[in-house]
């Protein structure tokens, strides 16, 4: 079954091309949309979620056109990339208010919101103002509003961005669980190993075009030829840096304000050990792990050249 079907899809903003003549069929299940910053991921996501109208070509979601078809949003849940909220509301109030827009009664909305917050492990913080949430909590409450109305297709735009290693692992598990429950998921990222942890089915996008689609493993080896940079925000950066230097796959390391920036040649192994380290709690809290998109940019440049 095809959940997203694009035919000669193009989108341009004045002279700037966002998406260029893309024809692609996304099957049910989990699909990763992988590309560096500016590749056209966000434009594609906005076309898929009906926020933008195609300049040319068509896009059908679950068999129907999405632009100007609000009824389709019963079947779609969207977690956007931007860190934007009604900061003065609590997480529970916000999710509830958005579920109400689906026509749910107050009591239904309350139970759907609570179920969604429970699913993303945010129930204890449900009554806290969103303005007081950590980055990871904000990411999770965004996911909660995307799944609260029980959609068939969940679209997640960079959902793991800024999460700490433990949350990242939990979230990946959660996304895989949703897929097991029969949901179709389109998830975008600029970090290959994140996508790889969720699915082997990927769409590679760069400069507004789909470069490749299908199994992730055929580009997997390319990644190892390029060093991967990881930015880790933590309580005790010096102690963490000392610990990380012992990893044999750490190629270089530098300290920044409240953060350690590591270059590794084996990101999978590195992330696995970093997660263990965070879980042990021996070095205090590791609050945020991000990966600049120039990692993937290098791979894409290599791919385009070859």
């Amino acid at each position, binding site marked *: 079954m095809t959940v997203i079907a694009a035919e000669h899809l193009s989108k341009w903003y004045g002279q700037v091309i966002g998406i260029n003549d893309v024809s692609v069929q996304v099957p049910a299940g989990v699909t990763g949309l992988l590309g560096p910053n500016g590749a056209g991921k966000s434009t594609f996501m906005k076309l898929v979620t009906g926020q933008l109208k195609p300049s040319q070509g068509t896009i059908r979601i679950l068999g129907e056109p999405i632009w100007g078809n609000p*009824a389709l949003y019963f079947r779609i849940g*969207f977690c956007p990339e931007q860190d934007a909220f009604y900061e003065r509301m609590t997480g529970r109030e916000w999710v509830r*208010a958005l579920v109400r*827009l689906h026509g749910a009664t107050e009591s239904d909305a309350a139970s759907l919101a609570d179920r969604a917050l429970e699913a993303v492990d945010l129930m204890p913080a449900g009554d806290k103002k969103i303005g007081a949430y950590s980055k990871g909590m904000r990411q999770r409450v965004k996911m909660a509003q995307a799944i609260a109305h029980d959609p068939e297709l969940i679209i997640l735009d960079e959902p793991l961005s800024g999460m700490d290693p433990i949350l990242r692992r939990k979230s990946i598990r959660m996304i895989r669980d949703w897929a097991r429950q029969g949901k179709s998921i389109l998830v975008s990222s600029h970090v290959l190993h994140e996508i790889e942890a969720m699915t082997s089915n990927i769409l590679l996008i760069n400069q507004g075009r789909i470069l490749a689609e299908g199994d992730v493993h055929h580009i997997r080896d390319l990644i190892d030829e390029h060093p991967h940079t990881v930015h880790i925000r933590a309580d005790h950066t010096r102690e963490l840096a000392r610990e990380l230097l012992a990893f044999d796959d750490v190629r270089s390391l530098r300290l920044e304000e409240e953060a350690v920036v590591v270059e590794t040649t084996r990101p999978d192994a590195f992330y696995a050990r970093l997660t263990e380290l965070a879980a042990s709690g021996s070095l205090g809290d590791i609050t945020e792990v991000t990966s600049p998109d120039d990692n993937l940019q290098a791979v894409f440049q290599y791919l385009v050249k070859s």
Partner: protein
Amino acid sequence: MNTSSRQPSTAFSAARIFELSLPQMLWSRRSILLALLVCGPMALATVPRGAWIIRPSQFTDATVGFDIYGLMIWLLYVRFIVPVLGVFYGTSMIADEVEDKTITYLFTRPIQRRAVILGKYAAYLVCTLLLVLPSAMIVFFLLVPVGGGTSIGVQFPVLIRDLGALAIGLAAYGAVFAYVGARVRRPLLAGLAFVFGWEPAMVVIPGYLKRLSVAYYLQALIPHARPPDDAGPPLIVVALRGLLEEPSALGAVVGLAVIIGLCLWAAGRAVEQREYVLEQ
């Protein structure tokens, strides 16, 4: 909730957007600043009231308080505060959501986009009425007794009519600027140009163009406060003659109702058709 779910009605959706938007609007920095603006006439009204309490003998005109009240309603409220509140809140109905990047959450729901503008418009009305009407009432209660020739009880119907006119004015300006906000990329600039350029110019230019301004209809609802047309320099007299060409009260209400209806329809249409590209 699944594919068979029925799309909520526009009224239901607008009510939900209203619930979501009202607290955001009420407790915004904009509201605090504009609350200070509506405090201005109250502060001004305390001056004659204070003078009346201290030295009542200096007030020879028994209706001076009521006259000042009328002038303040006309000049400060109808010609300044109402359009300014309209432009600042009205143009921001959609612009704030776009700037804060929260519009995505509203536009990816199974609701008509026009419900978003209607719900926000309703929130705007409640918010601005809460700011303006109490201020006008306080000014009335402070000023009307000054001079001793009129009583609050006798003039109370005038207050009710003025409050009604201010409410209609807020509704009309809000609808105009909701449209501007939904249609134009820099809505605040366009709105300020309308309020401080187009409206004053159109109202004083003889001919039919003035019918394309809100002020033309609105001032017809506040006739008690018109300044005399036989005083002042010739230029002002010409301007006042322009001002005095006005429709009947019924004609004014119909004219404003048409403006509100047309602008809200056009705003809804603009929101339905426009793509909002958020800055990354």
